[in-house]
């Protein structure tokens, strides 16, 4: 059978001064008609470059293809003049991007944004045009398309916006759909729905799909063919089931081994309660002025929980569930409106600034974004030493401690004299852990500490958390949206939705027999890489 898309020897150069000369080097890919090809790789592997090259969206002339061919419908796309390109884009090839929140124009009605695609390629009479748009919106499972066509994007959730983007990409019935991380910005339950939708549309319309992702869970869900990219090269490609079950290349093997296995572990708790929280409430008010009533968002509603000494409590939930707020309430970065926080038998003030110095040191935090959590103007050593210095330690002693801690988290002690921009994301997260350890805390609140990291780095950082938890006798509150990570890190889980803890229990028990319907939904939606493979293999 003729392939829908054939990429031969594609090389794309990067501007001078980048970390390598070629973003993509001699890449061969073949997408059979009516199938789905997943291009998998970590950040910087060049996978998005391939997608953009097929769409002719590379930021030329700094980044431009220098060799190879992209064959689509019998023509080499790289040889097309811009005018021809425009006829292919949107009409023959559709594209869906990662960020549903920014890829729709906020001041244009939904229908108009889809209508633009029609106008560019296929001018239609008014009534017919409208019918086509309504049909496209209905096709992607959006409720009540006849009303939706006249609404503005802000009325839609992230998942609905992504459906609109898919509708716009498919309105002209292209034969090839390119999707660049289309579900990465979405919650797991939404991700599962969008993946199901794309799979369904692809079968129904007989399209071919080039699917770019970093997530092997998604790959196992959707791919027929897989190509694994590393530093601009395709290191392995083949049929999905074959490749995922028997990876040949060392890099693929390492990537698959690094996927959180989601196996639960034996409980580590000592049984003595360290942190007890009862009736914690927080409502955010925003947008109010002198004469307007503010909008109120309840982020925490009567939250009760406890953490035992040496225990890891996982807080799981989707975005907007209030799990990050809960973490900040525990540390006192956000003051609770009501409720009690008892730490080691003593009542703690809700506001961090009202807590005595010694108490501030006892609870520390590791943040999600390793790029925002270190001050770019401070050397790493000073950042780590700041806490102990505030606690009254002599400066020289604090800096020596910083070096020692850098060693403990697997970095060179000499790193103390360097600035954060010299480190990778994973290294920065190690630095952030060292900083959290510097004041000898007894509890660390980790807010999505690995969700910004590539999967192989993620595994290392998780291992580091486990190591320092044991070495320093810590308790952990581990906030995450990823159930697989939660399962392997935590002794107990608390599931949050809409500012409430809807279910809590031992990790093993809770995962094996979830009681609350929301927990069941969450579990069903999570991409279960290993179980998906087993099912496919069976």
């Amino acid at each position, binding site marked *: 059978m003729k392939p829908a898309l054939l990429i031969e020897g594609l090389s794309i150069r990067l501007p001078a001064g980048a970390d390598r000369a070629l973003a993509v080097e001699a890449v061969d890919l073949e997408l059979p008609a009516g199938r789905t090809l997943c291009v998998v790789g970590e950040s910087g592997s060049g996978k998005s470059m391939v997608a953009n090259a097929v769409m002719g969206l590379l930021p030329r002339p700094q980044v431009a293809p220098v060799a190879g061919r992209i064959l689509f419908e019998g023509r080499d796309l790289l040889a097309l003049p811009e005018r021809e390109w425009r006829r292919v884009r949107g009409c023959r090839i559709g594209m869906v991007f990662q960020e549903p929140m920014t890829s729709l124009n906020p001041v244009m009605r939904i229908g108009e944004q889809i209508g633009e695609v029609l106008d560019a390629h296929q001018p239609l009479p008014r009534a017919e045009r409208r019918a086509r748009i309504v049909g496209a919106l209905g096709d992607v499972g959006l409720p009540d398309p006849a009303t939706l066509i006249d609404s503005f994007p802000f009325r839609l959730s992230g998942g609905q916006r992504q459906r609109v983007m898919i509708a716009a990409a498919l309105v002209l019935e292209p034969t090839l759909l390119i999707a660049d991380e289309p579900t990465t910005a979405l919650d797991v339950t939404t991700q599962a729905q969008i993946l199901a939708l794309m799979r369904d549309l692809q079968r129904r319309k007989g399209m071919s799909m080039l699917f770019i992702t970093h997530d092997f869970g998604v790959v196992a869900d959707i791919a027929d063919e897989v190509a694994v990219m590393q530093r601009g090269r395709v290191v392995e490609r083949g049929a999905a089931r074959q490749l995922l079950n028997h990876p040949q290349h060392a890099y693929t093997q390492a990537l698959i081994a690094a996927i959180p296995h989601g196996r639960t572990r034996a409980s580590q708790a000592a049984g003595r309660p360290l942190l007890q929280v009862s009736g914690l409430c927080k409502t955010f008010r925003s947008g109010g002025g002198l004469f307007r009533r503010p909008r109120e968002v309840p982020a925490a509603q009567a939250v009760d929980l406890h953490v035992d000494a040496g225990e890891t409590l996982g807080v799981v939930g989707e975005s907007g569930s209030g799990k990050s707020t809960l973490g*900040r309430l525990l540390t006192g*970065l956000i003051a609770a409106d009501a409720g009690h926080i008892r730490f080691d038998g003593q009542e703690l003030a809700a506001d961090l600034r009202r807590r005595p110095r010694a108490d501030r040191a006892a609870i520390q935090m590791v943040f999600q974004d390793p790029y925002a*959590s270190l*001050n770019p103007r*401070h050397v790493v050593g000073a950042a780590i030493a*700041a806490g102990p210095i505030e606690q009254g330690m002599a400066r020289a002693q604090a800096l020596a401690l910083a070096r020692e801690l850098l060693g403990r988290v697997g970095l060179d002690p000499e790193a103390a004299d360097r600035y954060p921009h010299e480190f990778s994301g994973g290294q920065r997260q190690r630095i952030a852990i060292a900083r959290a350890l510097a004041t000898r805390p007894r509890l660390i609140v980790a807010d999505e500490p690995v969700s910004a990291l590539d999967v192989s780095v993620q595994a290392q950082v998780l291992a580091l958390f486990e190591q320092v938890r044991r070495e320093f006798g810590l308790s952990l509150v581990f906030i995450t949206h990823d159930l697989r990570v939660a399962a392997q890190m935590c002794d107990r889980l608390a599931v949050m939705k809409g500012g409430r803890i809807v279910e809590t229990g031992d990790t093993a028990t809770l995962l094996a027999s979830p009681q609350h319907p929301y927990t069941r939904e969450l579990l069903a939606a999570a991409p279960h890489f290993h179980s998906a493979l087993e099912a496919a293999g069976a």
Partner: protein
Amino acid sequence: MTLNSDFLRRFRRNRGAVAGLVALLMVGLVALLAPWLAAHDPWAMVGQPFLPPGQAPGLPLGSDALGRDVAAGLVHGARVSLLIALVATAVSLLLGITVGALAGYHGGWVDAGLMRFTELFQAVPGFALAIVVVAIFQPTLVSIVGAIALVSWPSVARLVRSEFLSLRQREFVAAAQLAGQGSLTIIFRQILPNAVSPIVVMGSLMVASSILMESGLSFLGLGDPNQMTWGYMVGAARTALRQAWWIAVFPGLAIALTVLALNLVGEGLSDGLNTRLGGRAR
């Protein structure tokens, strides 16, 4: 070290900025060496009035209505104009950064109160306010500097506030709070260093606008009567503009070139301090 050399590389790539810097250094040098460069006291009547440039020895740029040396006025004027502009900018930066930092960091009613106070000054046309202040307090160096600073600081406060509003949400600020650092330490050690780039750029542009404002005040006769400034020279020459163009044109050119140079340098600083501007060709 790498930061500095990167900065220089990006700054140098902006040719206009380099030219502006050279021009500015020359003006600065002239101002510093004024007593030695100028042949005469700028107030002394040293020749016939209305001598065109190049007519009399020792008066390369001619003489004014009272027979004073235009070149000497220009050289001494550089001193006063630059001094007033630099001091006024420093004062308004100090005021603006303090108010903006407090408002942006604390938010809430502190922010609301300080911003309403700032708007009081922004609601009055700047130049009119400066005229009133100088007219009330007598035109002296101090009152002129004060007047310029008073009308310039609100824009600094706004800029610093908006920088602080976004920077205080960064997680490193939360980490500093957890480390136990107090508000002042966080404002000055954690946040302010990250807001320096836009402040520096704005400062360079404010020096330029201060020179213009001082010239405007002097032109209206509200300059310090004991100081020779460019604005005063233009103002004094306006009645004789048709007979003796050179009296107004040379100080006017000096103002225009200095302001242009400062604007170019400001743009170069903004390129240089913008670390994201890696490979932009210019």
